[in-house]
């Protein structure tokens, strides 16, 4: 009959002995001086709320646009703002030009981290 090894051991949670298992520093024990750009992919989903209200209005009015002018103009304005913002970001943030503020692009963060690297 096989007995599980955990049962035979007196204390499974006993720490390892440092002299028997020497510590190896496989990765440097400090934060890197750069961040990855993966999470910064431009999120293009915008104006969902406006789109929903527009659809609701259109459905009740059988898709005649003249009765939903307000909703439609709201939706278009929202999209225009979104496009303009993305265009501006392309010119400044995405090139890593730093500016005061807290929402920083990964390129801007990298620029800061290059100037002020981890102290040790």
């Amino acid at each position, binding site marked *: 009959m096989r007995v599980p090894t955990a049962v035979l051991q007196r204390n499974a949670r006993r720490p390892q002995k440092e002299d028997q298992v020497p510590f190896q520093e496989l990765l440097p024990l400090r934060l890197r001086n750069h961040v990855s750009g993966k999470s910064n992919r431009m*999120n*293009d989903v915008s104006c969902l709320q406006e*789109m929903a209200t527009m659809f609701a209005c259109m459905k009740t009015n059988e898709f005649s646009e003249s009765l939903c002018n307000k909703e439609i103009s709201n939706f278009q304005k929202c999209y225009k703002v979104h496009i303009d913002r993305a265009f501006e970001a392309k010119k400044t943030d995405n090139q890593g030009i730093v500016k005061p503020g807290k929402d920083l692009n990964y390129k801007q963060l990298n620029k800061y981290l290059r100037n002020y690297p981890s102290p040790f």
Partner: protein
Amino acid sequence: MLGPASKLALFRPTICLVSHMSVYPKNYIDPIFKKDQQEALKTSGEHLKIAHIPIKAARNNDTVSVFHDDVISKFTNYIMRKGDKLLARDLLDKSFEQIKRVQLEKYNTAKTEEEKAKIQTNPKEILHQAIENSRPLLQLTPIKRGGVTYQVPVPITINRSNFMAMKWIIEAANEKERTIHFPQKLAWELLDAASNQGRVVKRKQDLHKQCEANRAYAHYRWS
């Protein structure tokens, strides 16, 4: 739309990623030939900056003639096949003539002054109205998620919606019997669309309905 100021790339550092294909050097800016745009330049004081910047030559479809209209010239270019602009312009002029005839007939058969005042007889205005009425607000883009392709409604820019409206009108005019000529059919389609009915407006509404049906996928778009 960009103002001329944003095109002044003189003091701006540039990082070039693609090769420059234009004949003009990079510091050249597009010509500003319309009278109202030039006035706007002068009132904003931007003409002083432009004085030191070389300008590209005006293109050969630019003019300040009163008969010139940006929408008409764009529409002509979309009608055009294989660079035959003479034919394209001829076809559009013919269909404008048809529109004028139809509208004048309506105008003359109208009984009262009020009815007459309602009838638009300017073909240029009718073209503008037709395009305005057939502009879609959204379009469906196929986006693949987990092996399944979803049709996702996506908002579109004004330029894109203008293009789609013009394309639809021309496509509708091209679907015709052999005995009917293109200008005739185009005139009918334009008149229909200008009064917010007909095939092009139907097509736009169908697209909107489809978008509405697929609205659940709207958050899928990312790109």
